């Protein structure tokens, strides 16, 4: 007996109105709390080694509470493979880097700064290259460990070519005053996702730099806005304060100027942070929208305000609990991701067959080591 007589075929909601999203999150934090706290306990008593198993348990819970259309997804990654991935990176890269660093410093101390600088530069390049590879492989790993209806995703590409792309595209992107960064980000997003598949179907991504360029220009607005602000602030200070300024001692003037400078810096970084968030929100929304899988289209509904809310509540949670709240961030971020994900189109279960991609044996070692996000 199969699900439906007409060949197991589902229609995902085809409009974004009141219809339920194809993605539903069933978890609640009370259920998650015992997992989070026991993970914390075991991570502490094992000097951090348990964290690979902790990550796995956390994901098993989050994935199992995530429903796509009619069925929950399953996380099948293991703590052991994450641990081995970490060991591979530690032995293959960590120790050589450690000794290389040692050698570079020794060279510098002995009066060969040029050679030391050149080696240091080569190491930097290698790290940037591996950062790109890690980002690719992290995504591949997550897809290959995610099952739905007994079918998984993956990629046959090892990501080593992507590492080069990532390196030169990021470099070119920064060249003309950073104006090409939207292009490099969009191009890399596409390159990454076009190499991924789920079941027999390839993802296709067609994000264009134009989609995110307008939002990116906000970054260039800051200096202008701040200049105008400074002009007004100065003008205001002169008109309002000039009569009082002589009554203040030189000390007071110094303090006042320090306060103004402090506020200015706060404003600058605050504005920069907001703009970065606004840009990222747009980038991610546009990126997901540019993504298709066979007959499925995706949407991501979180707007800038949603991201800001997420971030502020994160901060309040962590600060308010003196740091303990940190263990709930993974839960919050996954919930945020799933509740804003939507999918449209149809899936023919008869045609959704098992992925033929190879499953890499080790986990996200590289990704962990470089600490870059998977998506």
């Amino acid at each position: 007996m199969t699900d439906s007589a007409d060949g197991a075929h589902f229609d995902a909601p085809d409009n974004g109105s009141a219809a339920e999203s194809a993605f539903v999150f069933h978890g609640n934090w009370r259920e998650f709390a015992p997992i989070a706290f026991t993970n914390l306990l075991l991570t502490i008593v094992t000097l951090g080694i348990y964290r690979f198993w902790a990550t796995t348990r956390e994901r098993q819970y989050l994935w199992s509470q995530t429903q796509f259309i009619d069925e929950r997804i399953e996380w099948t990654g293991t703590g052991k493979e994450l641990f081995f991935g970490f060991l591979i990176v530690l032995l293959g890269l960590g120790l050589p880097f450690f000794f290389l660093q040692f050698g570079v410093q020794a060279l510098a101390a002995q009066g060969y700064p040029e050679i030391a600088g050149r080696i240091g530069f080569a190491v930097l390049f290698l790290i940037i290259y591996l950062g790109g590879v890690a980002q690719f492989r992290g995504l591949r790993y997550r897809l290959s460990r995610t099952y739905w209806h007994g079918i998984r995703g993956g990629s046959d590409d090892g990501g080593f070519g992507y590492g080069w792309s990532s390196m030169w595209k990021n470099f070119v992107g920064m060249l003309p005053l950073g104006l090409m960064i939207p292009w490099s980000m969009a191009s890399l997003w596409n390159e990454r996702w076009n190499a991924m598949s789920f079941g027999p179907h390839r993802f296709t991504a067609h994000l264009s730099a134009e989609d995110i360029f307008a939002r990116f220009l906000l970054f260039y607005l800051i200096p202008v806005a701040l200049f105008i602000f400074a002009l007004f602030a100065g003008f205001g200070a002169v008109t309002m304060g000039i009569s009082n300024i002589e009554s203040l001692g030189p000390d007071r003037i110094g303090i006042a100027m320090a306060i103004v400078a402090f506020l200015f810096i706060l404003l600058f970084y605050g504005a920069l942070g907001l703009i970065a968030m606004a840009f990222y929100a747009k980038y991610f929304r546009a990126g997901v929208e540019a993504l298709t899988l066979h007959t499925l289209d995706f949407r991501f509904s979180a707007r800038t305000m949603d991201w800001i809310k997420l971030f502020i509540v994160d901060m309040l949670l962590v600060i308010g609990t003196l740091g303990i709240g940190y263990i709930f961030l993974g839960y919050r971020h996954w919930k945020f991701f799933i509740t804003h994900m939507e999918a449209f189109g149809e899936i023919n279960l008869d045609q959704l067959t098992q992925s033929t991609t190879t499953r890499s044996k080790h986990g996200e070692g590289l990704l962990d080591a470089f600490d870059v996000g998977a998506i």
Partner: protein
Amino acid sequence: MSDFSVWHFDGVQAVRRHPRIEPVGAGFVLADDQQRTGPFAFADLRYHGRQGDADVYALADSGGEERDGWRLGLSGAIPDAIAAQLPAKARYGGWIDRFGLWPAAGLFAAMSVAVIAIGVKAPEWTAPLVPAAWEARLGEAIVGDLGGRFCATPAGSAALQKMVVALDPNPGDLQVEVANAAMVNAVALPGKKVVLFNGLIADARSPDEVAGVLGHEIGHVRERHVMQGLLRQLGLSVLLGGFDGNVGGTFNGLLALSYGREAEGEADAHAIAALARANVSAQATADFFARLAKDEEAVTGKDDNALIGYLSSHPMSSKRRDRFAASVDKRRRYAQVLTAGEWRALKNMCVDDKDVADGGVLF
């Protein structure tokens, strides 16, 4: 409990079946109106956690590898005949499930304490096993001649050598240098090297003060603290995941290498004994420490890193000062370790040496 129900994915196609489980010997067959698959052994099932209201199982083949995507979901009241043969449910991971959460946590905590204790103690056992030649090469590799910053003049070098000979019975394998850098500090380095920074000599009011500091650093060399400290630092940085792509500051780490209270005490004892053997009063060293301690109060908040240098790598305490002062024998007639002329030559060595690399700020 709701009724028992079964779902199944074969891992080949995404279509879900709702078969019956028909026992066959020690295994079962999955059967529905269209097909029968199996038999499968209960022993090959692997627990994969809960999904919704179902317990999910995967299937391992004879090699232990799981069949890609094969899943069996059981929900409701599982019949006893089947439940009895299902594998145990995993929760935290193999070992922890076997012991239970709290016993396992206790066991891990005990193991962690043991690992840390060994990590702290092990360098004391392993350091003497490092061949002297390796250590010498390591010292050469790390420090070399500090980029030509070692000062040398015939008179100054002779004065320095006289001080070393006075303080150590076998000075042949020691390499003591004065480096042209303004910081008030001295370090012991791998390969039996001791480097006195010129700032220390410039700041000292008598050669006996320098002798006390030198005796202390020679103490670190003779007690093999240097290799211990290096191994400890290496071990800790590996153990504590010091691997974060930024392992920088190794040399600076070496400068600030703290050997721990015990080792500092040993080095002090060594210095006091060496001074006594050389018939040099330890009072000057005690005075030097007293001056540093006072300076420490004075410089706190001030931009004077030169003095902070010594204090940060050599914990200062009145106890240490008192220990040096207490070793002074009031009735004994002490000699100065250097004559006035030799002391002048040592003080001026870095100025008189025309070839020495510019002091500047080191690192």
